């Protein structure tokens, strides 16, 4: 990944405002941003390590540990709550065998909270490996569970 950082900055620039795009690219590439890469990022953009660490930890997206092979991001915001989101969240945690905010022990699936996907009239909603799913009920949840078991 260190080579990825140097190659990326060579291609896309190394000014400070490139930090978030770089972190997004790393997320896309590796699924998370390893703390061990902070010095390489800092060097590439001529920033202090503390500065880079501060940015990574500020944003919820920049996870610092490996995600599950599949990621189910379930909305917890008000509009989904109004449509029974809490009950679906409880059912999802039970069916997928993983608590909200965690990766299942076998690494197969992670259940993550998200605060609004902008699908507020058709909740409860989720992003399953980046694919939007709406009107989640028991049957839809079962389909999601089978999908992420693969």
């Amino acid at each position, binding site marked *: 990944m260190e080579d990825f950082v140097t190659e990326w900055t060579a291609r896309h620039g190394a000014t400070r405002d490139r930090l978030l795009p770089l972190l*997004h690219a790393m997320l896309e590439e590796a699924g998370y941003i390893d703390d061990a890469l902070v010095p390489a990022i800092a060097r590439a953009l001529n920033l202090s390590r503390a500065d880079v660490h501060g940015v990574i930890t500020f944003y919820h997206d920049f996870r610092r540990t490996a995600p599950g092979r599949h990621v189910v991001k379930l909305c917890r915001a008000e509009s989904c709550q109004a449509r029974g989101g809490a009950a679906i969240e409880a059912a999802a945690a039970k069916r997928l065998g993983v608590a909200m905010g965690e990766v299942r022990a076998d690494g197969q699936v992670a259940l993550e909270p998200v605060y609004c996907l*902008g*699908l*507020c009239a*058709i909740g409860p909603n989720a992003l399953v490996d980046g694919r939007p799913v709406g009107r989640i009920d028991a049957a839809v949840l079962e389909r999601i569970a089978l999908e992420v078991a693969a």
Partner: protein
Amino acid sequence: MSRVFVSRDMASVALGADDVARAFAAAGCQVVRTGSRGLFNIEPLVEVETEEGRIGFGPVGPADVAAVLDGSHANRLGRIEDLPFFAGQQRFTFARCGIIDPVDLNDYAAHGGWLGLEKARALAPQQVVDAVKASGLRGRGGAGFPTGIKWQTVLDAPAGDKFIVCNADEGDSGTFADRMLMEGDPYCLIEGMAIAAHAVGAGHGYIYIRSEYPFCVATMRAAIEASAHLVAPFVLEVREGAGAYVCGEETALLDSIEGKRGQVRAKPPLPALQGLFGRPTVINNVLSLAAVPFILSEGAEAYAAVGFGRSRGTMPVQLAGNVRHGGLYEIGFGITLGELVNEIGGGTASGRPVRAVQVGGPLGAYFPPSMFHLPFDYEAFAQAGGLIGHAGITVFDDSVDMAHMARFAMEFCAAESCGKCTPCRIGSTRGVEIMDRIIAERDITAPVRPEPVEGRARASTSSARTEGGYLGKALYSRAPDRIDVSIEAQTNLLRDLADTMKYGSLCALGGFTPYPVLSALDHFPEDFGASAPVKEAAE
């Protein structure tokens, strides 16, 4: 070969529109992917081109192709624009959304696209700013600041690098108008930004889109590339957020584009004078910028002719949550909350009575049906102790526990606080603790709500963002035996804390979180263990 139209909007896709589109393509149809029309209980929707116009069928599934094509399908809706939900709208900004192929430049031009930019370029910058002023357009991102005045400040700033920044962070739950516009009519936003650039002398623009909107990011990038030659020398770029709600605050957003933590800046200096990279910057919401092409092409008077009081023009209202006819309803200001929720929205989706609506996202107030006479107007909502915000209306039925919603507001503020000021950073955490005590005390002394809904007890009591983290440890950091945990004492403490947050916070995250909390307390005191609805009794 039939020509059919199927939306590629993220909400439509979430309901299965991709499978429907594939099925029609496999049957030999020419499938045009559009944005969404904006009524979600009829999605997935297919429109078939006929001599009488585009005939809609919805909801439909992939197995319905034959019945749709021979016209026999039970969910035949007729012409979409004739449905009551659409016939009553005034679609100024969303005129093309759901109708055209979003990234087809010919389609955009054929539906009145680029006329506003053409007109603007024939005018001097000051004349463009004057038109926006005359339209009465106010910022649609929440604060309602007059857009023309903001542009004037940037126009008057000394020449040099200036920027146009579009705030597409749309973090409020219950809102999706920015998303629908960017996915359904991206050139409209690009045209609005190009007009702004001409008006203030800016050469570079950024669209800051939240990462939760992957479809928007892709559509905007494609549209920017395809239209680059039409807006040149103005150059546009998409920047993706990273899951921080506070980055919707304009100065936090600018810091985020600059590659920093999204922390709120103190004002002054105004972003209009020292914004992005310290340069004069217009920062506007998607809907503010997307309203501008209409204002230029149809005239400021046409825009200002609709509206209510000092709220001119139209608002794309978003009906969300537990509502039967959820979707986007663009209408002149002045329509009442009750008309929107009951008549247009059709009440709740669950069929139970409406108990509360939250207007304006997580920082907006909760209103009971007794306040449904309120006209949709910035001033009327402010007077009633709330805000219009980005015009999302989230409907709740009678199973809602308002104390839990108040707790959620505090929890959300704690999780999303940028940390710059104490009332917000610490106060929100103290607020969660107070709400926990009130709820615990209420449930011991009087389990008031007779029909607990399944899963309610779990609602928002655990969050990955807080559980086990600093907040988890701080939650009960004070010795409980040293605090008066009576509901009365805790309610007073809550009001006191809300006051501190309201007047002592730097931005509206800490400053407005008291709105949902206090409105829930004032309008639904029975959920907080009190006996009589204080506010409603007074009415």
